[in-house]
C-alpha cells in the first residue's frame, strides 16, 4: 500500500470514528440491547471503535516504517513539509529492531 493511501485511510477511519461516537452518528446505536459481552450496546460500540483504532494505527505504522526504512523523505519527520531530512543523532542501532511488532497487534 502506498504511503498516501495508508494515511488517507487512517484519516478516514478516525473521521468516521468521530462521527460514530458523537451526534448524529451515535444516535442509531444509542441503546442498551442487545448486550455485547455483557456490555450495553452503545458502550460496546464505542469500545469496538477504540479496539479498531489500535489495528488501524498498527497497520499504518507498518506502511510508514517501510517508507522510513527505505529513506523516503515523505516519511521522515525531521524533513518537515519542506526540504530534506537529517539523520537522528540520538537513535541507536539497537532501537531499530522492533520488539513490539508481534505484541502490538495482539493487544487488541
Amino acid at each position, binding site marked *: 500500500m502506498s504511503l498516501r493511501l495508508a494515511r488517507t485511510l*487512517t484519516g478516514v477511519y*478516525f473521521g468516521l*470514528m*468521530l462521527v460514530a*461516537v*458523537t*451526534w*448524529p452518528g*451515535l*444516535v442509531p446505536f*444509542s*441503546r*442498551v*440491547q442487545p*448486550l455485547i*459481552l*455483557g*456490555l*450495553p450496546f*452503545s*458502550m460496546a460500540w*464505542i*469500545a469496538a*471503535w*477504540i*479496539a479498531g*483504532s*489500535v489495528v488501524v*494505527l*498498527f497497520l*499504518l*505504522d507498518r506502511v*510508514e516504517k517501510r517508507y522510513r526504512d527505505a529513506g523516503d523523505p515523505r516519511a521522515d*519527520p*525531521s*524533513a*518537515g*513539509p*519542506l*526540504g*530534506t531530512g*537529517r539523520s*537522528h*543523532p*540520538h*537513535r*541507536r542501532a539497537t*532501537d*531499530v529492531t*522492533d*520488539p*513490539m511488532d508481534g505484541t*502490538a497487534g495482539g*493487544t*487488541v
Partner: protein
Amino acid sequence: MEQWVVVTIIISAYLVLTLTIGMLAGRKSTDSVAGYVAADRSFGLLVMYFVTGASVFSAFAFLGGPGWAYSRGAAAFYILAYGALGMAPFYWIGPRVAALGRRHGYVTQAQMITGRFPSKRLSALIALLSLIAFVPYITLQMRGAGIVIEAVTDGNVPIWLGSLVAYGIVIIYVLSSGAMAVGWTNTFQGVFMVVIAWTLGLYLPNRLYGGIGEMFRQIDAARPEHLVPPGLTATGDPWTWGAFSTFILVSAVGLMMWPHLFMKAFTAKDDDTMRRTVILFPTFQLFLIPVFLIGFSGVLFAGTPQAPDFILPFMILETELPAIVVGLFCAGALSASMSTGDALLHASASVFVEDGVAKYVDMEERTQRRLMQLLVLLTGATAYVFAQDPDSSLVLLLASAYGIICQFAPPVVAALYWKRATTPGVIAGLVAGAATAFFFWQTPELKPFDMHEGIIGLLVHVPVLIGVSLATPAQDEAHVQKFMG
C-alpha cells in the same frame, strides 16, 4: 486489629515504596535544566507507555469516571470515546515535534511555538494559560487522593490530611529529581493500577449481580434512561447531545495539548518509541471499562456514598472485602492520582519558569531550577486550598480546564504545518479563543446547543488566526525554512 488500621499500614508501606523509587531514580539524572525537565531524553518504550498511560489516567478516570457512571450513567461514555481520537494525530505530530526539539533544543511546547512565532508576549501568554488550566487539574488529583484515604480509613484520616500527606510525598520527589522520578514511579504505578482495576471491575458485578450482563439487564429494567447516551446531568435530567458531543471533541482536541503530555515528545528516546506509544495508547482507554463497571455496580446498590466521586471506595468497602484487598485498591487509586499529580506539578513549574519568567529575567541555570522548585510548592499550595471545596466534581474540574487547553491546538498546528501563519495571527487567535471560552464558561445559559465553551472558543479562534495571519505580512522565507526544513 481494626480493618482501617490494616489498610492504613498497607497505604503507608506503598507510599514509602513510591518515595524510595522516586528518590533512587533521581540520582541518575543530570543536574541541569535539561535533565530536570526532559530527563535527558532517555525514556524507553516501557517507561514511555506507562508514563503516558499513567499520566492520562488519574483520579479523573479512576474516581471521577465511576462517579459519572454511577450518577450520570451513559454520560460517562464520553470519557471512553475521546482518548483514541485525541492521541492518533500524535503519530505524525509527535516525531515532528521531537525532531525540532533535538535540532533547536526545545524542552517545552511554548519554546516550539515561539521558535516559529518569535514573541516574548506569546510565550508569557502560553505560560499563563497553562498555569490557569493546570490548577483545576492538580486540584482534582489532590481531592481524589483525599477522597480515597478518607473513605478507606473510615473517616479517621479526613480529606485535608490525606491529600496533604499524599501530595507532601509527591512534592518531595518532584522537587528532588524532576522528570526522571516522574518516569520511574509512573511505570510502577501504571502496572499497579491496571491490575487492580481489572480485578475489581470483574469481581464486583459478579459478586453483587451474578455477572456483568445480568447487572446491566437489572439496571436497564429499573432505570432504562441510565444506560442510553447522552446520559443524564448531575441532577438526573437528560443530558444534551450537544454537550455530550462537544465534550468528546474538546477533550480530543485538547488531550495532547496538555503541556505535560506534549513534553513527552521531548523526553522520548527515539521516534519509534513514541509511535509505538501512540499505537498502544487506545489499550489504555479500554482499561476504563472495568473502572466504569465498578461505578455501574453501585447504581442499584442499597446505600449512597456522600458524593458520586466516592462511589469507587464506597463500593469496595460495602462488599466487606479483606483489608489487604482494600489496602491494595486504595494504593492503586492513590497511584492514579499521584502519578498524574507529579507530572502536572512538574510541568506547570517548568512551563511557567522556562516560558514565562525566564523570557523577561536573565537567570543562571541553578537559579532557574530553584525558582521551578519554589513554584512547585506554590502551585501545590494553591491547588490544595481549592481541593477542600466539598461541592466540586472531579470530572467537571478537568472538563473546564479543557476549555483553555484546547486553544493551544491551532497555534501548534499552524507552527508545524502552515507556512503563511504569522505571529500577530497566532496571538490574536489565542487571545480571542481563550476570551470567548472564558465568557461562555461564565455565562453557560448563552451557549448555543449547550456546546462546551472550549469548542465555541475554537470556532472564534481559528477564523481569527487565519484572518489576521493573511492580513499581516508573511514570515521571512528563510525563517520558515529553518523551522520547517
